[in-house]
């Protein structure tokens, strides 16, 4: 009876707000079909972790504070990083036994295991053939990463430190696993809002991109047709590409190897032709299982005290800014390239917007706009090429940020 009363007595307004946020995410997933595979587990995780005396996060908490640890942390700001499994309550530090969601967070996200496993699945799903037919499209995958860096500068202007700002900027990668990977290294404190923003905005690509594209292009530009060559590639090309990309990434940006390597490993499994069962397992069972655990674990980082603060709203707003800058970067780069291309050989600048990593949603959005302007215009394959390049570009950008930022921070 005491336990029941303690549960009811410890509910506060912040917890109730988090239940509402969790329910909103679940409703968006079910009713609007916005990234349901992630938003539903995230929403449910947010509710779970904010239940009174949430044992899914903290299996048990010591009844007395550890005064030794408390005094060390008080006298050495930042020392809390050294003490695992201590929770601060009213300025005092208590030892706790981790619950299931905390165990998943520590073993799956803080070790970067989940993002890496997800990338194996994504790699097994990606077909690079459209990119081989239009290799020049790879540059849109680079240009559309502009949003990451522009948003990072905006975040710095809003008084976030460099590490946190770069983790916020990476929302613009439109690439959930990369955002999680960078946030887990640079901004553990804001992990929840960054992950939620990364996945929420990905699902909003069909709403965010069209107005930006229309604003930056003329009707004449949107009507541009692009030639597409049907070509077959040898098995050698498809197999050698992931191996070569991994080696180059390893030499140029070693820190990006866990992400690039796992993406390319998944792709190699797909293309080698002798591991069909493993390829199917990576695309289905592995991806589904890790996505399930990833979603609920991200939700578990949405504790009311950490999530309900002004910075969360700022991060969510900057996530939107990042997607707008990404789209603008890609479109403007295509328009810039068109200055040097002959009439009849110009890019449809909308293709540039597909250089973000949200695959294949962004490519579909571009095709939809193109067909709305001219029902006989097909730019889907070119958009897919740019979209696949965006996947590569976002990982490289994430790797470079992970390499550059620590060099500049004391």
């Amino acid at each position: 009876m005491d336990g029941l009363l303690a549960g009811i007595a410890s509910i506060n307004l912040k917890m109730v707000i988090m239940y509402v946020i969790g329910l909103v995410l679940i409703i968006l997933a079910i009713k609007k079909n916005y990234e349901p595979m992630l938003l539903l587990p995230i929403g449910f995780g947010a509710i779970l972790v904010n239940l009174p005396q949430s044992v899914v996060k903290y299996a048990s908490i010591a009844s007395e504070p550890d005064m030794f640890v408390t005094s060390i942390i008080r006298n050495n700001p930042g020392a809390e990083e050294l003490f695992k499994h201590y929770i601060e309550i009213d300025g005092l530090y208590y030892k706790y036994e981790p619950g299931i969601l905390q165990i998943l967070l520590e073993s799956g996200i803080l070790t970067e295991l989940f993002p890496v496993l997800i990338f194996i699945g994504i790699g097994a799903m990606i077909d690079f053939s459209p990119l081989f037919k239009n290799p020049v499209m790879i540059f849109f995958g680079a240009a559309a990463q502009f949003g990451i860096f522009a948003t990072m500068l905006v975040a710095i202007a809003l008084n976030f430190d460099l590490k946190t700002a770069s983790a916020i900027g990476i929302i613009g990668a439109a690439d959930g696993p990369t955002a999680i990977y960078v946030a887990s290294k640079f901004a553990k404190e804001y992990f929840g809002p960054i992950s939620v923003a990364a996945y929420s905005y990905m699902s909003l690509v069909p709403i965010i991109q069209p107005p930006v594209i229309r604003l930056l292009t003329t009707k004449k530009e949107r009507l541009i047709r692009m030639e597409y060559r049907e070509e077959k590639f040898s098995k050698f090309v498809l197999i050698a590409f992931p191996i070569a990309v991994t080696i180059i990434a390893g030499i140029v940006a070693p820190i990006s190897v866990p992400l690039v390597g796992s993406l390319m490993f998944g792709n190699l499994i797909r293309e080698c032709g002798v591991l069909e069962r493993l390829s199917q397992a990576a695309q289905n069972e592995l991806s589904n299982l890790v996505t399930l655990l990833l979603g609920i674990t991200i939700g578990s980082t949405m504790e009311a005290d950490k999530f309900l603060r002004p910075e969360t709203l700022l991060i969510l707003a900057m996530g939107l800014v990042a997607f707008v800058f990404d789209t603008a970067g890609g479109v403007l780069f295509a328009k810039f390239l068109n200055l040097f291309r002959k009439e009849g050989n110009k890019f449809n600048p909308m293709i540039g917007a597909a250089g973000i990593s949200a695959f294949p949603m962004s490519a579909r959005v571009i095709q939809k706009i193109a067909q709305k302007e001219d029902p006989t215009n097909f730019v889907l394959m070119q958009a897919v090429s740019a979209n696949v390049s965006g996947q590569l570009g976002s990982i490289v950008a994430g790797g470079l940020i992970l390499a550059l930022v620590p060099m500049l921070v004391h």
Partner: protein
Amino acid sequence: MFDALINGTDLEKGIFVTVFGMLGVFAVLILFYLIIRIFSGSLFRKKAE
């Protein structure tokens, strides 16, 4: 110069990361582009033409 940057403001560091980050992304993707063209033979085919 790099020491001065390390002691600089976050905005200066951010601009540095932006410039070298974008250059880096383009540089790496240019390498990937060359790989694709070499592997798919289109670089050599064009030369032969």
